[in-house]
């Protein structure tokens, strides 16, 4: 693996749980293929975090840097507010294509938006291979190849592709590490490069809420579910449960 490993940290201010798995997996891959068995300087590989989000996302980036990533690119622009998955993937693809990475690792979905489609869209935009929903990732640097076990409701598919590849990992893949004190101190010296849309050559009109190809008409709070009947079991609870289901014609 001669190039760089990249990771997209979350758009949330709190480092998205699922993206911690992506950061951890990137660290493990680098550690497995580094002569010093450690990520960071001397490993011969670079882990760059890419985050698209408001100013406050810096905190999440610092956390991922303290886990061991090398540097970060933070795309922040007021015009990005309200961007949908299509716009998000457009911006990320632009950053990735100008930086020259071998491997992009994403979390499976951001916990707030539940779109889970950004990794696939990213691969589509870059014309890269998409290896998504990975429950395990193996990199074979000698063959410039990535192998994953893709885990979906239909079962497991063992897939592979040559660099460059977009991988998305699920939350079963690893146990993300806690930043060490040394890591936290080191993170303070790491570089976070700020980029705006004009730095990337993207028109503000191409992203954000006004450019979204779908628009929210209205949203309303769903009426809270009220609790129904509650019975105390004194040997007959099971029968009452069955009677309730029969009354509701479920059985």
């Amino acid at each position, binding site marked *: 693996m001669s190039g760089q490993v990249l990771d997209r940290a979350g758009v949330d201010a709190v480092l998205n749980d699922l993206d911690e798995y992506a950061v951890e997996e990137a660290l493990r891959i680098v550690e497995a293929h580094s002569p010093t068995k450690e990520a960071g300087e001397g490993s011969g590989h670079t882990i760059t975090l890419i985050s698209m989000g408001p100013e406050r996302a810096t905190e999440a980036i610092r956390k991922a840097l303290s886990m061991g990533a090398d540097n970060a690119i933070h795309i922040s622009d007021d015009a990005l507010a309200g961007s949908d998955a299509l716009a998000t993937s457009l911006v990320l693809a632009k950053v990735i294509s100008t930086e020259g990475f071998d491997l992009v690792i994403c979390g499976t979905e951001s916990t707030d938006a539940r779109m889970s489609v950004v990794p696939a869209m990213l691969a589509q935009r870059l014309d890269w291979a998409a290896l998504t929903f990975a429950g395990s990732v193996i990199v074979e640097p000698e063959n410039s190849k990535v*192998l994953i076990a893709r885990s979906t409701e*239909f079962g497991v598919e063992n897939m592979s592709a040559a660099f460059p590849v977009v991988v998305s990992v699920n939350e079963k893949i690893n146990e993300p590490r806690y930043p060490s004190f040394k890591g936290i101190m080191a993170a303070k010296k790491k570089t976070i490069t700020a980029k705006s849309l004009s730095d990337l050559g993207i028109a503000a009109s191409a992203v954000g809420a006004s450019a979204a190809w779908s628009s*929210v008409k209205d949203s309303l709070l769903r009426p809270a579910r009220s609790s129904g009947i509650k019975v105390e079991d004194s040997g007959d609870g*099971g029968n009452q449960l069955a009677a309730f289901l029969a009354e509701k014609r479920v059985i």
Partner: protein
Amino acid sequence: MSQVLILVDSVGGQVSKSTGELATFGARLGSVTAVVFEPALAAQLNGFSIANVVVVTGVDTSKYSPAPVAEALAQLITAKSATALLVTSSARGKEIAGMVAVISNSGLITDAIDVDADRITTQSVFGGGTTVHSAVTTPTAVITMRSNSIEVVAGSGTPTQEEFAPTISEAAKLAVVNSTEPAVKGGRPELTEASIVVSGGRGTNGDFKPIEALADVLGAAVGASRAATDAGWYPHTHQVGQTGKTVSPQLYVACGISGAIQHRAGMQTSKLIVAVNKDPEAPIFELSDFGVVGDLFNVLPVATAAITAKKA
């Protein structure tokens, strides 16, 4: 009349239940064309609101997945001037939909629970706490529909059939499937498709036998809370909740599950919720239509026997 495409899913050579649901939604928007990638599925599409079946040829979906499927669908959208593509909201379905949206420059809505004749979609977000109505502003709308969101309306007649040979790019063939291990089926319905789900949590203490027994007498799928899957008591593929699957069945039975917000996010749009829990203060009771305060190891076997008796 507007042309609407639906992507037919299959499990083990059988058309998925969600196909009828997609056809029912699709018929509201226009004339429905069902797209299949396995020719054998075409014969199973009678009796739905489907006017036409397109059999896509020359795409080896067992070797390349899912990018070529997305390319084929995007080309069909152009060929048919389709105003909408409806796909089931599975992990794979959403991914395909996202790729199609990129290729065809179409707006995308995921996890819709309803769509009307004007392509206004309804989504239930923030764990079912908020309902959002959205409109797609592009010529074609790509929409993924959540399973169990509609009663299937039967259609009449046999759909016409045609073949379509898409042009698949080299980029779509970059990721290769080397081998497949199908999901282990225990004869129970698939979790996100099931009309009834019986779930177990911490209260099972690792023993899912009473959960499975009740599920089997109800013809239900088995779910589990994160506490149960993290403890290794049940496979992660059965996890219901924020980091697991979202289900919306006719009936959800929560057994020994306290009802943490993360679990509720995955099940609170269920039509009917029944809970069994030892703790009378368990938050799950706040959203249950029927709750039994008691030990699941006492309550479930009695309920299973009573249901068996009622069914006999």
